Structure formats: C-alpha cells, structure tokens
C-alpha cells in the first residue's frame, strides 16, 4: 500500500460515518470501517471482502478524516490482483480489456458497429471543426441493450444542431472500472492510449455518454486541458437555450434514479431532471433516497463483471420497490450500468427502465 494511503488510514477515528452510508456494509459481510481498522493493524482480511465495494464513493465524500476508504479498498484489491487472488470473472474482464480494450472481450473492430444504426454519417473527430468527441463507452458500444443509447444521443445532438465526431475503433475502454478493480497498470495503459488519440486528433471537448467514463476522463486522466462533460449537461443546455425541444407527449409517471458517478461523485443532479421536466406530459417523481442519498444500484467498481453471492437483497430491487410505492411507471437513469442492474427486478415487478435518451427519442 502506498505510504500516503497507509498514513491516511492511520488517521481513521472509527467514527462509522462510512459504514452508515455504505450500500454494502451491514447487509453483506463487508464492513468498510472494519476494513480500515484491520488495515491499521495490517491484520488479515478475508479475500472475498474487498470485492463487495461498488465504488459508489459515498464513504470518501463523507469521511471526516478524509481517509478515502473507497480508495483504500482499491489498494486492498490491488494486492489481491497482484497475488492473483481474484474472482475468475474479474480476471477475465482484465484480460479482455488488455487484449480487446473492453471488459467483455468483444472484438475491437466491432466497436463502431452502432454507427450503422444511424441514417446519417458521424465523422471521425479529426474531421470535425469543433474537435468535439462523443466518447461512447464499452458497454454502450457492444451490449445489445445499451447500444441504442449512443444512437439516440447522436440523433439528439444532431437535432440540437451540434457538431461532433467519434474515435470509432480507436476508442479504448476509459479504465474507470479497471482502476477500481485494482489494476492501475492496465488503467495507465488505457489512459495513455486514449490520451494519445486525443492529442493526435486535437480533441478540444469530450461529451461522455456514461458517467463512469466522464469520471475517469474528467478526474483521473490528469490535467489534459480538455473539457469533459456528460451528455445530459449538453442536452439540458440545448433545451434551456431553445435549440432542442420536444413536440411529442409522454404521459407517464417517471422516477429518476441518480447514478452515483453522475450525482454523488460529480454533482450532476439538476440537468437530468431539467431534461425530464422539458418532456411534455411527463410527471417527474422522486425516490425517498434521491440526489446525494441515492441508493447505489451496485453496478460500479467492477461489480458489473461478476456476481457476488446472491443471498443478499439487491439494492436494485429495493429501488424498484420504492419506485412502485411512489407510483412510478418508469424508472429513468442516465447510466448504462444502472439501466442494466435495475432492469431485471423492474421487469419482475411490472415496471419499465429507460435510459433518459430513450424517453427523449419518443417525443423528438
């Protein structure tokens, strides 16, 4: 463990603020405060424990001593990765990312396939005047459920009259989850590769589709001088300025789920709501735990790539139950991971999960 991290852990006062807000502590054998305590004493930590963390960031945002528990968890994982003591599925995700630059191991030259679903051409970013890049994200480039998101957002940006380009097959995984799994070496490689492309093509601005990519590009790629935003920020601005409007009507009760990497960790709460409020007919509802206290869907921190023991109730299910109680018909999210985790329990309970852009496409 780096000396700086170890020193931070020594200042933990065991106040329990981290556990009190952690979506995993309590319901699973994981207890983040206890991990900090054991780390202080360099005691053995059962090797399954660090993998429960979803990297939601609540602990790090709130810790009064700035111990950054979620970062300590990453260090604990790093040690396990180094020793090869990690769940098989994660091992596979790392290898896949090393070879194909995406955790699912899909062929790199299929990364731009989603573009075929568009009825207009999207240029390579080098061919744009603005040098504005739409950063797609692995899951949205490959997963059949999520592929529609970049397609939608591309259409919406075009409708709003905004020029943008893509990197196509040259885009590599952003590495946000890879760093959180504890493979900082691989993360640095991905960062280097993407930064290389950004520099080569003179990228000035990045519109990230996934909050996870936005987080990495904005906060973990160092001082790049490139402006990074989430697509909801762009659309909200277009709507406010009048360059994007929705003639259709969407007469549904929609509840908005704040993704941890968009909300808690990057303070983007209002833009997605402003967008939904601009949809005619839509009634916007709120969870009892919303904004800063939004309950994590458990899709982050590598949890998307493997299953922890399923004896514990999924937070996604808790979320869906709450949505139902509040009278929602549709749960809207602005993150592909949230869409994926929420969808199963929602379908079971007769609710529908939609990514924000899917609602917008119905009224455009």
């Amino acid at each position, binding site marked *: 463990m780096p000396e700086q991290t170890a020193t931070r852990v020594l200042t933990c*006062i*065991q*106040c*329990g*603020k*981290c*556990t*009190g*807000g*952690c979506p995993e*502590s*309590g*319901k699973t054998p994981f*207890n983040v*405060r206890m991990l900090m305590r054991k780390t202080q004493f360099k005691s053995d930590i059962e090797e399954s424990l660090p993998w429960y963390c979803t990297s939601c960031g*609540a602990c790090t*945002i*709130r*810790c*009064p*001593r*700035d111990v950054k528990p979620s970062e300590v968890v990453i260090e604990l994982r790093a040690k396990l990765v180094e020793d090869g003591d990690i769940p098989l599925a994660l091992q596979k995700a790392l290898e896949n990312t090393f070879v194909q630059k995406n955790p699912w191991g899909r062929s790199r030259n299929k990364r731009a396939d989603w573009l075929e679903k568009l009825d207009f051409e999207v240029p390579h970013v080098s061919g744009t005047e603005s040098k504005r890049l739409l950063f797609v994200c692995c899951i949205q480039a490959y997963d059949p459920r999520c592929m529609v998101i970049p397609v939608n957002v591309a259409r919406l940006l075009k409708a709003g009259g905004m020029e943008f380009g893509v990197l196509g097959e040259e885009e590599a995984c952003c590495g946000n989850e890879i760093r959180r799994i504890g493979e900082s070496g691989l993360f640095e490689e991905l960062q280097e590769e993407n930064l290389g492309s950004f520099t080569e093509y003179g990228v000035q601005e990045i519109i990230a589709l996934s909050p996870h990519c936005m987080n990495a590009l904005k906060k973990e790629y160092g001082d790049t001088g490139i402006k990074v935003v989430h697509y909801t920020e762009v659309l909200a601005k277009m709507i406010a300025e009048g360059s994007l409007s929705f003639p259709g009507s969407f007469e549904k009760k929609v509840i908005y789920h704040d993704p941890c990497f968009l909300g808690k960790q990057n303070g983007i709460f209002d833009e997605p709501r402003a967008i939904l409020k601009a949809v005619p007919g839509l009634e916007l509802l709120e969870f*009892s*735990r919303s*904004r*800063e*206290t939004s309950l994590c869907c458990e899709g982050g921190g590598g949890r998307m790539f493997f299953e922890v023991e399923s004896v514990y109730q999924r937070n996604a299910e808790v979320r869906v139950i709450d949505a139902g109680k509040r009278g929602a018909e549709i749960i809207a999210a602005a993150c592909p991971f949230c869409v994926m985790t929420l969808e199963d329990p929602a379908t079971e309970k007769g609710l529908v999960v939609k990514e924000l852009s899917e609602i917008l496409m119905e009224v455009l």
Partner: protein
Amino acid sequence: MDHSDKNVLVVGGGIGGITAALELASCGIKVTMLESGPSIGGRMIQLDKTFPTLDCSTCTLSPKMVEVALNHNIDLMSVSQITHMTRKGPGFLVGIKKNPRYVDQDKCTACGSCAEACVMKGRVPHEFNMLLGKRAAIYIPFPQAIPQKYLVDPERCLFVSRGKCKKACMDACETGAINFDDTGEEFEMYFDSIVLAPGFDVYDPTEKQELGYGTLPGVVTGLEFERICSVTGPTAGDILLDGKEPKRFYFIQCVGSRDRQSGARYCSRVCCMYTAKHACIVRERIKDAEIYISYIDVRAYGKGYDEFYKTTQENGALYIRGIPGEVVEGDGCLIVRVEDMLSGEMREIEADMVVLATGVRPRKTTGVLCDILSIDRDEYGFIKVDAVTPSLTNADGIFVCGMGSGPKDVPDTVASGGEAASRCMEYIAKGAGS
C-alpha cells in the same frame, strides 16, 4: 492607580465582552461597548439552559446585562460598528458608526404598542430565534434585551426600505419615540486599548445533504433546538414540531467539527456537552421520549462534565457509537441509518426529530473587523493569539477573549474575558508610566 481618564473599547457584547467590560469598569476605566446587534447577550442569551448545572441561561446572564446598562463607566452602543482605525501612539483613533434605531432611546418605554400595530407584524423571520417564528418590523429581539428599547429593522420596515407605509407604529406610540428622520451617527473616538469579543457563528449543515437539513422537516441544528426549548422561543418553551410533540429524538454529534470535508479540523468543545444537556431537557419535559445520541467519542473534560454525561445516560439517553451515514425520509418519520459499532449492528432508527450538533465557526464579520484593525487570524478565521498569553493578538494593545479566538464554553469564555481585561489594564498602566 486612578484610571478614570482611560478609555477602552470592547467590541462584542456576548458573555466574553460583558465580562471584560464589567471588570474594566469596576477598576474605574471608561468602557465603550460596541455591539453590532440590537442587544447585548450574544449566543448565551439564546440558550435555554447551560451545562453542566442546567441553570437557566437567561437567569445567569440577564443580571450581568442589566449591570452593563446601569454601570456609569460603561457606554453601550448597539447596532454599531467600527469603520476605520488609526494608531495614535500607544492608543487608537477609532471610527464608529452608530446605525439608526429609529426609536428615541430616552422616550421609549418598551411598552410594545408599536410592534402590535406594525403592518409587518408576524411576517419577519426572527434572527434571535434562528429564523423560527416571526416578528414585526419594529421589535425588541427578546424580553430581556439590553438596551431595553424597541428598534426598527430598516430592511424590512416598509417605510424605511420603500418609503411607503401608513406608519401605524407612530400612531400607536404614546410617547412619540419613533423617529424616521434618525440617520444614526458617525464619529471618531480615542481609546487607550481595545478588547475584541466577536464570538462565533454555527456551521451551516445544508451542504451535508445526506443529513437532510433544509430538505427534511424535523432536522434542526443545536442552536435552533435551544430556541425551540426556550420560554422566550417560538413555541414558548414547549418542544413542538409543527404543533405536535415529538417523541423520538436523534442527536448527531460532530456535524462540521473534526471534519476535513467542511474545512474544520478542530473540535468545537461545546457540542458533546450541549447535546447531553439537550437530552436532559427532553427527558425532563417529555417523560416517555426515546433519545438516541450518536457520537465518535464523548468529550466531557474536567470537573462536573463526565458526571453530567453519566446522569444523561442514567436518564435513559441511548448513546450510539457511530455517526449516521444518512438521514432519510420514512413513513411519517425520519430514518437514521447508523452503524451501532459497539454491537456491530447496522440500525435504521425511526425518529421524529433529528438535532445536528453543528460546530463552531468564527463570526462571518470577524474578517472585516480584523482587516480594519490589522489583526491576524488563523487558518480557520479565528483571531490568532499568543500560545501562553491567550488574549494577546499580534497588535500591541488589542486583546481578545471568548469564542472569537477559538471554541470555548461559557466558563472558559468568562475566564478569558477576565484575562483580556487584566492584560488590557497592564497595557494601559505601562502606557501611563512611559
């Protein structure tokens, strides 16, 4: 030694400034007490009771405030501030601005007819009650206020702020004390020495969204809770929330203290004890109340304090080691999510009222004050003092006491007021000798 030709300026009329002023005055020194608010008394007069004795705060402080008003050596200037200062030898030439009160202090009998008649009656959020409850635009902040006189709030008075009002107050006042032509006064005065006692503000926990302050009804700060408990408060001393008596109380300590996230790495010194006090007040008034207190460690230092903590526990307040991660909305109640560390269990505790023991911050205006006087402040904005002479500032002849230099409870503030007064006299005596 005769000091009757000596003048000292005391800035701030809380318990710290009052202590220093009375001490100096008792030695024959002429004291000008400058208070920016409408009354002296500071935060202590906002408190219901004081730990660890549970004495009524007003009963302890009020006589001292009256003493200030009656003492011939003390000239009290309320709603006043310092505008500039130039050094003159060992002394100071200080510019003072007395803002208008719009009520003639010699004529006002504090009968209150004006406030009854004011068209803004019941419409202005009351600062003294931490904005809980409403007052009129002409008002007296609380019944025991010193000066014991009404005043006009220029920002909320329709006539002063917009030039348009039927001025019902003027008709109501039998002594003709109201004077809208009052423009206040500005002048310069010479002082041989200055004592600063600007006190403190409390941390605003709105930014800690996970605790629900400002978004969830029933989440209040410690100082708001003092007002809710106080007989001069918005509910006349009944502990009420929306007219109903809460039964389940959850107190959270260390909100904005010992906390890097809000930039205050220090302990505020008073919150552990005032929370224990709050628990005692609740137990006394609501016999069947459920009381929970979340703590990191209970700082009950010195004589009488740990004993007080134990009494609080005996009275059935459940101390939970662990700071809640979140306060969320439940079914007609608040839900506090907390790791009860000593049992190793995660708990979701239902509560009607959550009281945040918010920490201490320097008064917002202390920066301006210090800039005018060229006084150094520490990284948090408290006035910087000498390590072994805790009333000594970087400026020769300017002393500090009370919360202005860092967290202190009332006994410590009183001690520091005495220290500042004696250092001040020492300084004056030296000046007289040279």
